[in-house]
């Protein structure tokens, strides 16, 4: 054997001895990578499942079928149908009468109070609205499905274990017996929860809804869109098409990049110090919220718009300039329309960001407990994410369900916006 052959054999031997080990490492590395991806996807799955699992039942509301007698002597003793009298009458007495008729065996005062508690406080308001709309109801009798109290709601939905010792659950044995009687008579049932989608906030979980928060979010987003889209596009057009390369434009660019990474809560501090304390704008107003979110989303929109402008090939500009258009005409008549889909995509993504933002809005007072549904951008309001934050803090079991359902609605809006952005990009984006 020659010397060089010996050398060769030794090298391949050395490779072969460690080869199995190296392949093993390769497999492990690959599996580790796959595991990381799967783990990431699992987090997505667990989060969605846990939220949907907790929240889907909030779209249903437990109601109790009651025979209500609109007794004239209780509601309108004088018989004049004066709206002021009708509006301030004692409608809960009607419900109490009906419940007493349903359970004649309940005599004890304490027990009676518990019995009245199975129907929501909001039921009297429903009766009032009915009578105010149609005073001829007085004196008649009707069978009505009225919302149950939140504890009863939880019981019927199965979140309260009926087999636990009485002292460890929120609903007492006698109440459960009443509910079981209602269940056997099919006088209790679950209905689609319109209150949740249209109502304002409330301390009573069965009366609380996201309607006010959705309107607040809508006003805030409209303000944000009206301010950030024109300003963002204008800034991007200037920086990309007109700005000379100098220190000033460098400074602007560095600023935009940095603002994109500033924590959102700092924008809230800015809003509090400048808009509210310095300019004296009202607290909790969607107008101020929209202005703060504008400053926050501007970097996103500017960066996306610049990318869209960059994607338009120079030949378009040269052709326009060649037939005698001015620089401004070139940009506004030719470049801008072509880059619009990209800009709109960036704007929608910016709006989705703004819709999910909470922290800066806490700073400018949009966390107040507001029952009324806001009617304009100057009314005090709250937004959907802040409503979620507020409900997440509430101790009632029923609010857990409401919070998850509100999250589902918020995620639904976000998914729609993102899908819209993807469709826009797929349909209108041109590759040059």
């Amino acid at each position: 054997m020659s010397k060089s052959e010996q050398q060769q054999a030794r090298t391949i031997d050395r490779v072969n001895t460690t080869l199995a080990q190296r392949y093993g490492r390769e497999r492990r590395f690959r599996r580790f990578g796959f595991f990381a991806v799967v783990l990431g996807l699992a987090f997505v799955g667990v989060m969605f499942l846990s939220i949907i699992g907790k929240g889907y039942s909030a779209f249903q509301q437990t109601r109790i079928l009651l025979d209500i007698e609109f007794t004239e002597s209780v509601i309108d003793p004088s018989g004049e149908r004066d709206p002021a009298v009708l509006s301030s009458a004692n409608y809960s007495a009607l419900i109490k009468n009906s419940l007493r008729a349903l359970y004649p065996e309940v005599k004890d005062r304490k027990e009676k109070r518990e019995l009245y508690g199975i129907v929501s406080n909001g039921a009297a308001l429903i009766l009032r609205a009915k009578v105010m709309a149609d005073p001829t109801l007085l004196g008649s009798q009707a069978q009505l499905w009225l919302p149950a109290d939140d504890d009863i709601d939880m019981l019927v939905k199965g979140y309260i274990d009926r087999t636990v010792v009485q002292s460890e659950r929120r609903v007492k044995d006698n109440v459960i017996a009443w509910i079981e009687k209602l269940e056997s008579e099919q006088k209790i049932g679950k209905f689609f929860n319109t209150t949740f989608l249209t109502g304002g906030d409330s301390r009573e979980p069965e009366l609380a809804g996201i309607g006010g928060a959705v309107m607040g979010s809508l006003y805030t987003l409209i303000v944000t869109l009206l301010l950030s889209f024109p300003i963002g596009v204008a800034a991007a057009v200037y920086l990309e098409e007109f700005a000379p390369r100098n220190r000033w434009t460098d400074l602007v660019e560095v600023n935009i990049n940095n603002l994109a990474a500033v924590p959102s809560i700092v924008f809230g501090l800015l809003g509090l110090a400048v808009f509210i304390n310095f300019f004296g704008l009202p607290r909790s107003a969607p107008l101020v919220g929209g202005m703060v979110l504008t400053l926050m989303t501007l970097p996103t929109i500017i960066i996306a718009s610049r990318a869209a402008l960059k994607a338009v090939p120079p030949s378009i500009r040269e052709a326009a300039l060649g037939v005698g258009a001015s620089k401004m005409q070139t940009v506004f008549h030719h470049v801008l329309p072509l880059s619009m889909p990209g800009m709109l995509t960036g704007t929608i993504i910016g709006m989705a960001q703004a819709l999910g933002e909470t922290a800066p809005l806490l700073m400018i007072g949009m966390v107040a407990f507001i029952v009324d549904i806001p009617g304009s951008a100057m009314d005090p309001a709250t937004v959907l994410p802040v409503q979620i934050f507020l409900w997440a803090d509430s101790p009632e079991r029923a609010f857990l369900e409401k919070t998850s359902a509100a999250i589902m609605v918020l995620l639904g809006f976000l998914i729609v916006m993102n899908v819209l952005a993807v469709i826009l990009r797929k349909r209108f984006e041109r590759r040059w």
Partner: protein
Amino acid sequence: MTNTLLILILLGLMALAYHLGVRRSQKLVGGPGGVRGLHSLPSYYGFFTALWCGLPALIMLLLWVSLQGSVIRDLIVSDLPEAVRNLPEARLGLVINDIQNLAQGNIVSGEVSPEMAQAAEHYKSLLRTSYAASFVVILSLAIAGLSLGWRLISPQFRARNRVESVLKWLLIGCSTIAIFTTLGIVLSVLFESIRFFGQIPITEFLFGLEWSPQMAIREDQVGSSGAFGVIPLFVGTLLIALIAMLVAVPIGLMSAIYLSEYAGSHFRAYAKPLLEILAGIPTVVYGFFAALTVAPFIRDNGELLGLDVSSESALAAGLVMGIMIIPFISSLSDDVINAVPQTMRDASLGIGATHSETVKKVILPAALPGIVGGILLAVSRAIGETMIVVMAAGLSANLTVNPLQSVTTVTVQIVTLLVGDQEFDSPKTLAAFALGLLLFLVTLILNVVALRVVRKYREAYE
């Protein structure tokens, strides 16, 4: 809403001005056929007239609205009795507030004295005068501008150049908003911080080991000494950020490597967008998930192991924050890994390295600066993240590195100090701005360093 009406009238006038401008330019050259004789297209003459009509009036309106409040306030104050005028600033503000509420028919705090009723009447009449005056001044300005613009039109007049230069200044104005925002942030937190450091020495703030921002409001109050040492907050913030990074960096980096180096195009096309869903979920949702799902899970399992876990442990907040940051790390690393030239991979595979050896010994070292930059950006996000920690981390400022205990962070304290009713001069409120300044500076430094690192790396292969 008289101002809305005024703006609507102005817009109508501008439309009219546009129309008049177009008509006049065409008339000057003898009908639409003679457009050739004009310097600019007729529409530019229209825009020119409309700008003359609208711009001065709008600027006037803006000035009016911003000055009206303070001028009226001064007039009201000068008419108040001597005793009221000499009240301290804060009390005087309350009186003015009452007068305004009285004028608008809202509920007033305290009794209504005859002087106040009189002042409210005065306020109302001043407001009415102001509105009437603004109507007259602004509309006459608009009409004057319109006629001036209309008069200036002549066939040789360079309307396009004028309109374009106005437009250009508008664009420049929009692009400077970023600078004004930064300036606004710096100034607003800086001023309040300086006032804070006037009351609490800066060394105590930066190096103090205790944080309990309850100040005694009355002299005889007990148990609220007020300590403003930021160290426990910072340790808590860093602890949570560290846990988040321990979750996010391995998972994010490995999934980026797998997706860009190993995965088939089909798997990648589905897995990548699904993973990026995590980036689009609002932070309040993560906070809810952390507080109501992860924290109880960790506590119950910790009890099984005989560990004493706080129900608001740093671990729960950190874990969930890590999940939030995974897509951030993975998409940044993905970009950097894809930017490594294919020739380097081919060379490494060509001399017999396995795929994983290529990744570990060639691609990762080449991509390292970019990855480090990405991680720094992620750390800056973790430090500034608010909702997760507000909902899942505690309020008590423990100086500890035990992840099972409750810690608090800078952002949590800003939120708790500023949400709800506050008086604006107490060190308690001002402390929030000092914390904001600190947060802004730290994240700014991290961002600048990260962007430098990323940019420097990019130059190497382009």
